[in-house]
C-alpha cells in the first residue's frame, strides 16, 4: 500500500479538491483505493455524497478495527471506498492526544487498511496536531497544494522544515501549484521563479477554475465526465505522483530547496517595500 497525504498547514489551498480527484483517478486506474477523510469539515465525504455510517465511532477507530471497517463505505465507483468524516471526528484527535503511543497505533491502523487497499489517500485538516504528526510519521508522500503566493510559500517552507526528520526516513514531500491564476502578477512571478530556480515543485499545476468549483457543487469529481482542462491537470498530477512513488523520479525528481524558497520570500518582501516607497 502507498499512503498519500494531502496536507498543508494553511487552509483553503485545494487539499480536499486534490484528494477527491487523486482518489478517483487512482480507483479509475484499477487500484483498490480508500479515501480517508481526516478533516472534521467532512468536505471530501460531502463531495462523494457519503455520510458517516451509523456504526462509525471515531474515538474507537484506532483501537477497534471492527469499527474501522464498519465505518468504510463504498463510493459510486467500485474500486473506491470512503472513510467519511463529520464534526465527530474531533474525537479522533482527542483519542490521539490521550494515546500513549499514538503514532504506533495510527501506523497499525494504516497497515491494517493496507491489507485491503493498494492506495490510501488521506485528506488532512490544516494545521499541526497530534493527527498531523502521525500522518508525517506514517505516510509515504505528503502532497502539498500550494497557492503561488507569499503566505502559502512561507507556510510550505515551515512545513518542509518541520518534517525534516521524516524526510530523512524517506518521506516524499511533493508540493505542486494549486489554484493558479495566470492573471495575477504574483502568481506569474512565483511560478517563473520556481521553475527557473528548480525549487522542486511538481510540473503539474491546477488552475483556479470555475469548472473545479462547479464540480464540487455537483458533488462529483471533474474527472468523471471531463478529460480536458483542469481534469487533464489532475490526471497529469496523479501520474507525476505515481512516478515519484515508484521512484521513477530518482535524482531528477523534485526536491524542495528551502533556502531558495526563503530567498524568493525575501525578494518578494523587498519588492513590496520598494513598491510601497515608490508609491509614497
Amino acid at each position, binding site marked *: 500500500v502507498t499512503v498519500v497525504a494531502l496536507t498543508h498547514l494553511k487552509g483553503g489551498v485545494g487539499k480536499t479538491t486534490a484528494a477527491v480527484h487523486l482518489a478517483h483517478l487512482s480507483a479509475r486506474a484499477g487500484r483498490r483505493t480508500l479515501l480517508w477523510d481526516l478533516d472534521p469539515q467532512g468536505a471530501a465525504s460531502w463531495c462523494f*455524497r*457519503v455520510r458517516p455510517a451509523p456504526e462509525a465511532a471515531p474515538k474507537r477507530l484506532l483501537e477497534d*478495527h*471492527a469499527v474501522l*471497517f464498519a*465505518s468504510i463505505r463504498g463510493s*459510486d465507483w467500485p474500486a473506491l*471506498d470512503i472513510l467519511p468524516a463529520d464534526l465527530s471526528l474531533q474525537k479522533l484527535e482527542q483519542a490521539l492526544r490521550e494515546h500513549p503511543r499514538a503514532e504506533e497505533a495510527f501506523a497499525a491502523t494504516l497497515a491494517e487498511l493496507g*491489507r485491503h487497499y493498494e492506495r490510501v489517500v488521506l485528506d488532512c485538516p490544516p494545521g499541526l496536531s497530534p493527527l498531523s504528526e502521525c500522518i508525517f510519521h506514517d505516510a509515504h508522500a505528503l502532497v502539498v497544494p500550494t497557492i503561488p503566493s507569499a503566505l502559502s510559500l512561507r507556510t510550505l517552507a515551515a512545513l518542509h522544515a518541520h518534517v525534516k526528520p521524516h524526510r530523512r526516513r524517506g518521506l516524499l514531500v511533493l508540493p505542486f501549484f494549486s489554484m493558479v491564476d495566470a492573471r495575477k502578477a504574483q502568481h506569474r512571478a512565483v511560478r517563473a521563479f520556481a521553475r527557473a530556480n528548480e525549487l522542486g515543485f511538481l510540473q503539474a499545476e491546477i488552475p483556479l477554475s470555475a469548472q473545479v468549483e462547479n464540480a464540487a457543487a455537483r*458533488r462529483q469529481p471533474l474527472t468523471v465526465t471531463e478529460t480536458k482542462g483542469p481534469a487533464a491537470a489532475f490526471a497529469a498530477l496523479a501520474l507525476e505522483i505515481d512516478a515519484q512513488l515508484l521512484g521513477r523520479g530518482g535524482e531528477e525528481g523534485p526536491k524542495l530547496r528551502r533556502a531558495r524558497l526563503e530567498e524568493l520570500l525575501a525578494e518578494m518582501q523587498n519588492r513590496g517595500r520598494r513598491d510601497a516607497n515608490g508609491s509614497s
Partner: protein
Amino acid sequence: MDGTSANGAARAPAEPDVRCYEASAEGGARWREALRALRTRAEPPLRDHEVLLDSFDGRLRASGLGLSARGRAPRVVCRLAGRGTASSEVELATVPRFAWDFPRPQALELAHALEARGVEPIGRHELALERWAVLDDQDKVVAWIDEERHRVRPVHARAREDVLRVALRGVRGYGGEFRDLARALERADGLRVAKEAHFDPLRLLAEPLVAPGAWPKLAPRSGAFRALARIARAQLEAFEANAQGIRPGADAEHLHDARVALRRLRSLLGQLKGLLAAETRLPLVDELRWLASVLGPARDLDTLLLELRLAEMSAELRPVAEALEQDQALQYGELRRTLDASRCGELVGRLRALCAARANSELAGPEAAFSFAQVLARPLWRRFRQVVEAAARVAALGPSAELHELRIACKKLRYLLECCRGLVPRAELALAFADLKGLQSVLGTIQDTRVHAELLNTLAPALFPRLAPEAALALGRFQEQTVARGRAACAHYVGLRDAFLTPASRARFERLLRALGRKRRTR
C-alpha cells in the same frame, strides 16, 4: 483468512452483498413495477457476448468446467470456471484450441479434463444488460440493480428461450439499504430468488453429444454373442469416428481414442474365446494387432509432446517440441496412408460383418448362446488371479518387461470389468474399478516415463545438433525429470499394489463373480 480476528472482530471491509433473482417465464419484466417505486438512475445499457468452448464430446462439461472466450485476436479474454470455484480470466492472443494454449495453472487444470483433445465452439452466450443505480436522498448510489437477459445459441440448434435474471448488488457500508431493497424485490411480481449466484450458460445447452462408441446398455440376461457384437459395434464406431479426426492430425486424442477402441476390442475377442469361431477370431485379432502396432509410435510421440508442452520449462523446450512436431507430421502422414489402405478397409468390413451377425451365424462360437454374465465370469476370475499373482511377484524396480506385462494384464482385467456394466450392482463395480485404477495409473506412469526416456535417448543425438544451447540444456533437464518421475511412480507403486492385494479387494471381486452367477470353488 475468514475476515475475522481471533476475538471475532471484523478484519476486512465488509464485502458488498449480492442477491440474484430469476424472472419466471410468465412474469417477464413485471418486476419493473417494483423499480418504479425506487429513486433510481438508469445507466447506459450494455451488450456483450462470449463463445462457449468444449471438446466435441463434452469433456469439460463432464469435468464440471466451463470455458468461454470473448473478444478478437490479438486480445481474446478466456474465462475458465470450475464447479464451485471462482472463475479465472486469461488474456490470450487467439481463441484457444488446446490446453497448452493457456498459461500453466489453467493449462494443467484443462489438460486434466481434456488431455490432448481440442476445444471448439459449442454455442454462443449473448447478454443484454440494463442497469439502474439506486440512490438515497443525497443522490448517492446505495445499490445497483442489473437486469440481465441471457440468450444461449447452441452451434447446431435453435437458440434457447431467453433467461431473465435480476441481480441486486450492494455498495459497501449500505447493508441496511440493501436489505430493504431485497425485501422489496422479493415482494415483486414474477421474481424468485435464483439458486445460483451466477448464470451458467452451459446449463441451457444440450447434453454433450453422446460420443461415438458409447458403451451399450447390457442386461444380466443379454445373450453373449449379441452383447459382444454390440460392444464390437461401439468400438468400431469409436474407431471410425476418431479415424476421421486422425486424418487432419490436429487433435492427438483422436489417435488415443482410436487405439483404445481397437485394443479393447482385440482384448475382448482374445479373452472371450468361446463366443466366436476360431477361424473368425484369430485373423481378426491378428489384423487388430497389426493396426495397433502401426498407430503406436505416433501415440508415443504425441504423449511426449504433451509432456513437453506442459512442462515447467515449456518455453525453453519449444524448439525441441517444434523439431518433434516435424517427426510427428511425418508419422501422421504414414497413419493416413495406413487408414486409407485396403488392408484397413478390409478389417473394418470384417468387423462390420461381425457387428451385424446373429448368434446362430457361422461366425459364432460354441458359447455364443450362453448369457453374457455366464461367459464373463470365468475369464474375469482367471484374469484377476493373474493380476494378483503378477503384482505379488513384480517388484517396483523389476525388469520393465515384467511391469509392462502386469500393466497389460491390468488393462485386460479392466476391459472385462467394463463388460460387467449393467450385469452387476453398480456400487460393487465402482469399487472394483477404484481398486484397479490406482494400480493401472501408476503402472501407466512408469511405462510412459520409460517409453519417453527411451524415445528421448533415441531422438537426442539427432536433435542436439539442431538445438540452441538453452534448448539443449532444457532437454537434458527434461530427460532427468522424466527419469525422476518414473522413479517416483515406482516408489508409489508398492503402496498401490499392496492396496490391490488386500483381502478386501479380493472379497470385492468375489462378490462380483457371485453377482455374475458364478459359484467359485474354494481352494
